[in-house]
């Protein structure tokens, strides 16, 4: 490719800029939209799956009438006896609905004498001084909770209303770090017994029981054993959760892509129409080229490169804008579609997760329809008869 060729190409791009500019802007917006969506969803998926890794291998709930009820702690010893199970612990947690009956806190009870649990907690916050924490009723809260409390003039404590009607004053000990916002926005961490009080769970019961089974090949066996011990339990495995997450993301993603496909098809039709409008000066231009020795093949090559340059430039610009939008501006408006506008206000930032495969997917998704739409218009103008140059 010679300099002369590029000179000529740029000339044509500039000369026809009124035709190209609209296409360029719309293409950039389309690519930007697609890329924002893909960056956002893969970033959230990435973070969600990482937090999922912290989940226990098995979660066991007691079922009555199809619904989960509190599970007796006595089962913990029974489960520990099973060979292959490395860790068993009861969990106490639940939703505490606020006076508006719409929003809630997620109360998580922690047994601070359980070393494993404490290591997990320390991942979310900095190292806490357990003694000071347990000296009175205190909680560690997520950022969404903090904002809510501030807005309702609760500076240093909150009054929980227990199911027995008693009020329980709990002081704020600390707030979780900002980067936990995706999963821990509405969390209230308290001592396990305090959690039981707030949620109205009896001393010898728990919300569920978690198990860790380090050897993956034993998991199916153990699941069957557990079901034999208690047939009225439901066992949720980490694999199932991972697959459900994947499916959820793919489902949401699929809907978006479907809608986007419809937009793309409309765009293709517009492209086709736009480039099919050939005016006389365009014709003359091509006729001159043909008259001085360019073959139809050469003209087609030139014209396709001309339209491709627009497509590629728009693609690159769209990607860059989407990157800035998602990872610097934190994707206002867009984010709500993903994070779920159910509960408390969330202000997470997103970790950039991009790979070559994602970029190729976007590139193919955009370029293939683009090229397909311009092939016929490009041909139409390239076959202009050379004798038009004589007129």
């Amino acid at each position, binding site marked *: 490719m010679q300099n002369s060729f590029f*000179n*000529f190409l740029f*000339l044509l791009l500039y000369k026809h800029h009124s035709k190209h500019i609209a296409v360029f802007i719309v293409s950039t917006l389309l690519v930007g939209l697609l890329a924002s969506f893909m960056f956002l969803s893969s970033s959230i998926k990435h973070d969600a799956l990482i937090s999922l890794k912290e989940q226990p291998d098995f979660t066991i709930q007691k079922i009555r009438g199809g619904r989960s009820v509190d599970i007796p702690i006595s089962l913990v010893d029974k489960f520990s006896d099973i060979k292959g199970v490395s860790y068993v612990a009861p969990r106490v947690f639940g939703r505490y609905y606020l006076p508006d009956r719409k929003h809630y806190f997620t109360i998580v009870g922690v047994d601070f004498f359980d070393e494993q649990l404490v290591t997990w907690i320390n991942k979310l916050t900095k190292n806490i001084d357990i003694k000071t924490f347990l000296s009175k009723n205190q909680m560690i809260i997520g950022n969404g909770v903090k904002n809510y409390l501030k807005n309702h003039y609760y500076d240093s404590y909150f009054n929980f209303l227990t199911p027995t009607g008693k009020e329980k004053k709990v002081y704020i000990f600390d707030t979780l770090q900002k980067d936990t916002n995706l999963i821990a926005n509405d969390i209230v961490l308290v001592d396990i017994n305090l959690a039981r009080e707030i949620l109205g769970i009896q001393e010898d019961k728990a919300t569920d029981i978690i198990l860790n089974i380090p050897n993956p090949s034993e998991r199916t066996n153990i699941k069957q054993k557990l079901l034999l011990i208690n047939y009225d339990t439901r066992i949720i495995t980490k694999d199932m959760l991972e697959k459900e997450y994947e499916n959820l993301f793919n489902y949401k993603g699929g809907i978006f892509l479907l809608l986007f496909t419809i937009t793309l098809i409309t765009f293709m039709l517009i492209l086709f129409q736009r480039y099919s409008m050939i005016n006389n000066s365009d014709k003359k231009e091509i006729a001159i080229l*043909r*008259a001085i020795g360019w*073959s139809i093949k050469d003209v087609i090559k030139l014209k396709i490169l001309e339209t491709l340059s627009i497509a590629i430039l728009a693609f690159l610009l769209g990607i860059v804008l989407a990157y800035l939008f998602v990872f610097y501006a934190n994707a206002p408006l867009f984010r709500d579609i993903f994070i779920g506008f159910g509960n408390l206000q969330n202000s997470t930032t997103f970790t950039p997760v991009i790979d070559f495969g994602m970029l190729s997917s976007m590139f193919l998704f955009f370029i293939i329809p683009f090229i397909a739409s311009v092939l016929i218009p490009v041909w139409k103008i390239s076959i202009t008869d050379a004798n038009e140059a*004589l007129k």
Partner: protein
Amino acid sequence: MIQIKNLNKIFHTNNQNQFHALKDITFNVAKNEFVLLSGVSGSGKSTLLAIIASLLKPTSGEIIVNHKQIAKLPDLHASAYRNHDIGFIFQSFNLFDTLSVEENVAIPLIPTGLKQKEIDKKVTKALKLANITHKATTIAKNLSGGEKQRCAIARALVNDPQIILCDEPTANLDKENALKFIEVIKTLKQKGFTILIATHDSIFENLHEVDRIIHINDGKIL
């Protein structure tokens, strides 16, 4: 060099009318001949030139240029022929106004796959031959009529064609520039080019470089 036998060209207009532009044309042009095609507007001389340049395909007849059958060439080879063997100079110059002279002259060379250095060499040579080197970097729309003409000549010469075809070259030039144009044509004749000029400008009639004048009227050679 050029052999034309029984050439016919019929134009079909949209409403089934026919216009018989060339009727049974036969003549030959030898190498390095300078031939004038003389006739009024509409006599068919421009059509004849266009067919020789393979810009139009004849309805019937034979035309052999440089031992090649021109009448039946598929597009790839017609354009190669136009690129290498012919240099065409249009009545309305047909330059790209926003490009400079040297960029305009380089355009025929782009699809040939030559490297940029070689392109530059050929462009320089053509500019010199057409006597327009001093305006190489000027944008085409800022050139005078005569300079545009010489730029067009340079472009026609850039790929070392053997045949130069000109369609009413002096129609848009004043007397002074027309004479300058003739000077360039005289140089080309000396350098061995075969030249065909379709014109009704009398300024050519008395040139002693002209080897032959072919008069065309109503599509027939007189």
